[in-house]
Every structure is written in structure tokens, then in C-alpha cells.
């Protein structure tokens, strides 16, 4: 599947010390994708994350495939959320939060000293567990909130963005007649899709979702999942989920995070195609987890 964007040309972060062969050194998933050749959108190499002296994540090597959905699963406290927060440099916002290792977005270093974290977050958007629309804003204004921060735009252009992103988030038909109403008047599931539209409005490369459907009813969950299926046509999606069946249903790749012993940092225990993880995973711990025998 061809991406609509020409990734080769995108140079989000100009780094004078950038190595031109960065992409060639990216770590491929194991085993490499066997369908059509896919490129890596994000690559982590020996990534470790700390909260002060506590090492929460150790030596994560992963290659997030472009225009695919990657699900991250694992027991609570094993570092999944920490990992996705590293991907858009939100981890460092936590007091004492820091990372070691390398993180690349289309071959460009995301963590370099000269890289503006705000720019990273434009490229790597995030949807949180609890829907968090801006309470005083209308649906319309919620969607374009991020765009407005980036300077003035023509109103016709903004309307276009609102319709496109609300359609992508599978919300348009439900709200097209009440765009001026408050975002808070929507149901929880609609609010979450509004937040997805808001994330998409700034045209990110990668969309991170941290348990986006865990607070929603099954119908809303299904709508979010349908939206995600659409999203991967344009974006690369990483989703943290505790819902095994959700991971099995929607993702192309699955990463299982695991802590071997209490107090150890979380590790990426197994990473493979979703079909492999949910049919015959390589490691016993993965199988114990996905079959619910964990503990």
C-alpha cells in the first residue's frame, strides 16, 4: 500500500550531525513483515526510560511500521504507556523522567538536543485514555484547536480540515449539524472520536493511542476501531490496549511488554505480527498472557 505522503522528502528535524544512512540502520521487526514491504515510521534502538533513579523500561528495540497498526499489550506497570510517552517526548514532562538510547522518526533523531519537543508532538500525536475535549470550546473549535496554535488560516481551509478529520474519526455524520455546540455535550465515545479528530487535524505522521477505548461502551469501542482501520490508510498508529480481542481484531503487529521479576524494568518480550502472537507466540510468557493464564 502506497503512503500518500512522500516520506523520503519529509525532514521534520534538521540536525546538522544527522547521519544520512540512519534509516538503513533501523531495526526490522522479527520476523520482517512478509506481506508487501513496509517502511519503518519509528524505530527505537536500545531505548531505556527512567523515573528518577528507577529504570522503568530497558533496551527496547522496535520498528513501528508505516501505515500499520501496532498494538502494545502487557500487564499493568510493565512500561507500555511509558513507552508510548517516550515516542512523542512526553515522558520527559514527568518529573525525573528521562530516556537513554535512540529514537528515530523516519530516520531522524527525535531526542536530539536541538530537537524541539513541540515539533515532535506535532508529528507524533496522542489520544489519551479519557476523552479530554476542551470544555469551553465548540466541536468545531475543538478540532482546530491545535491548528490555531500554529498561526492563522483561512476559514474555508479550517472547515475543510474539520470535515475531513471528523470523517476520518467516524464522527462527522453524528455531529455535522451541531458543530457549534459544546464538545462536552457529546457522549463519551463521541468525545473520544472528537479527540481523535483534534489529533489528526495537525496532520501527524504517527498517532499514539493510550487505551483509547477502555472507558467506552462496546458500540463506541467498535466505532473507534472502525475509525482506526481508516486511519492507517494515512497514518501510522500505535495503540496501548488491555483488551486482547481488540489487539487481535485491529492491529497488524503486536508488542508484548513484560516484567520478569518485581522491581525489574519493563522489556519488550515479544514483537511480531499480530496473527502470530495470537495463534502461536514464540515465548511462553506471551502465550500465558494472551490466553489469560498470567499470574
Amino acid at each position, binding site marked *: 500500500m502506497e503512503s500518500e505522503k512522500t516520506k523520503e522528502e519529509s525532514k521534520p528535524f534538521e540536525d546538522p550531525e544527522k547521519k544520512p544512512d540512519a534509516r538503513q540502520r533501523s531495526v526490522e521487526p522479527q520476523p520482517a513483515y512478509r506481506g508487501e514491504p513496509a517502511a519503518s515510521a519509528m524505530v527505537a534502538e536500545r531505548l531505556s526510560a527512567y523515573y528518577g533513579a528507577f529504570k522503568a523500561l530497558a533496551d527496547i528495540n522496535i520498528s513501528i511500521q508505516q501505515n500499520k497498526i501496532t498494538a502494545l499489550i502487557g500487564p499493568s506497570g510493565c512500561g507500555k504507556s511509558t513507552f508510548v510517552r517516550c515516542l512523542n517526548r512526553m515522558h520527559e514532562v514527568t518529573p525525573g523522567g528521562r530516556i537513554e538510547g535512540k529514537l528515530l522518526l523516519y530516520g531522524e533523531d527525535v531526542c536530539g538536543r536541538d530537537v524541539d519537543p513541540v515539533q515532535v508532538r506535532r508529528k507524533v500525536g496522542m489520544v489519551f485514555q479519557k476523552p479530554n475535549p476542551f470544555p469551553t470550546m465548540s466541536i468545531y473549535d475543538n478540532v482546530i484547536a491545535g491548528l490555531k496554535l500554529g498561526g492563522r488560516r483561512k476559514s474555508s481551509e479550517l472547515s475543510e480540515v474539520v470535515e475531513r478529520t471528523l470523517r476520518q474519526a467516524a464522527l462527522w455524520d453524528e455531529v455535522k449539524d451541531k458543530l457549534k455546540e459544546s464538545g462536552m455535550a457529546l457522549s463519551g465515545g463521541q468525545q473520544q472520536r472528537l479527540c481523535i479528530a483534534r489529533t489528526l487535524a495537525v496532520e501527524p505522521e504517527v498517532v499514539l493511542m493510550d487505551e483509547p477505548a477502555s472507558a467506552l461502551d462496546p458500540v463506541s469501542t467498535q466505532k473507534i476501531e472502525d475509525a482506526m482501520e481508516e486511519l492507517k490508510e494515512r497514518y501510522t498508529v500505535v495503540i496501548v490496549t488491555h483488551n486482547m480481542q481488540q489487539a487481535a481484531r485491529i492491529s497488524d503487529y503486536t508488542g508484548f511488554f513484560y516484567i520478569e521479576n518485581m522491581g525489574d524494568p519493563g522489556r519488550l518480550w515479544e514483537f511480531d505480527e499480530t496473527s502470530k502472537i495470537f*495463534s502461536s507466540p514464540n515465548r511462553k510468557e506471551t502465550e500465558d498472557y494472551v490466553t489469560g493464564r498470567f499470574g
Partner: protein
Amino acid sequence: MPRGTFQQELDRLVEEVVELGREVESCLGTMVEALETHDVGIARRVFGVDDSYKERGAQIAEECLILQARQAPVARDLRLIYTVQAVQNHLVRAGTLCEHICQAVAESGDAERDPDLEAALLEMCRGACNLFRQGLDIFEARDIDRARDLEAADDKVDLLYSEAMSLAVNPGKDSSSGSPEWRVWAALTVHYLERIADHGVSIGERTVFLVTGERMESAMRLYRDQQLDHYDD
């Protein structure tokens, strides 16, 4: 352990299948005896098993369906339920064939027989029953190392099949070639026996899949490719 009840249900499912398998095996034993002795009384003991096996097979399939609906099994649980469904099908079919053969024994009664063909048939019968038992043993013990031996044993049965069929269609000129009716029964029996052997081999192969997940990946890929093709349309 979490999902203790689910695990118990899975264990019970496996017990039911193995129990059914052992009963089919015992029926096959009766069948061998009936073929060896031409004893209509022994053959009749097997009459009616087909219906009861089918009913139990359907019950096992239903339990599998309910577990799938309620427990959303994945990985080894999914492989187990899938395998149990397939194995019960092999068992029931072997049971049906066993009854057919016993009916043939009963109906051919004291017809005139070809001793060469009968000898080949009996040897094939023992080979097929052995294969069936081996397949079931492999499934019960999940002993996939032994599954490799099945192929060789099956080749032997296939060889006996060709031999017996050749004897069945090429009767000798002398009087010992048996009655035409009996030859037809014999040919049918040879065919049924070959099927029983195949069911044994399949049970062993299913066990390999159960333990290793082999084939599953290619099946999943096929499924995904089909979906992609569908989107392209």
C-alpha cells in the same frame, strides 16, 4: 491460576474426545475379530455405534462452539479447540466406516472367499487399526515425535491397499477366487480400511499443529491476503 474454570472445561473436552476415541478403537478391535472369524454375531455387536458416535461428536462440537463464543480463546486454547473439533470428526468418521465394514461381514456371511485377497485384507486391517491407535495415542500424550512414524506406517497401508485392490479386480481363473459379491464387499472393505488409516494419520497431524502451531501462520496469512484482495475489488 486465572481462567481455572475455562481450563477445567478444556480438560474435560479433551477427556471426552479421548474417551470417544478409545471406544472407536475398541470397536475397531471387534471389527478385526469379525473379519478374522467371519462371525456374524461379533459383527452385529458393532451395529448402531455410528449413530451414538455421531451424537457424541455433535455434542463435543457444540461444546467447542460454546467455549469459543464465551471465552474468546486465542493461541494454544484456540488451537486446542480447533483440534478437538477436527479430531472428533475423524473419530466419528472412523466409527462409521467400522460399522460399514461390520455390516459387510454380516452380509457376506459364509460366501465363498479368495484366500489371497482375504490375507491381504486382514493384514491391511491390522495395519489400519494400528495407525488409528497410534494417532490417538499421539493426541492423548501430545507426543509429536512419534507423529513422524505415522507417514511410513501409512505408506505401508497404502501399499497393501494397492495389492488388495489389484487382487480384487483381477480374480484368478480357478475356483478359489471367491464369489463376485464377496469380491465387491472385499473391495469396499479395503477402501474403508484405507480411510480409517488416513483418519489415524490426520489425528497425528492435527496434534502436531496443536503443539507447534504449524500451518496456523500460513492460514492466517491466507486470511489476511483474502481480506486485502476483497478490499481491492
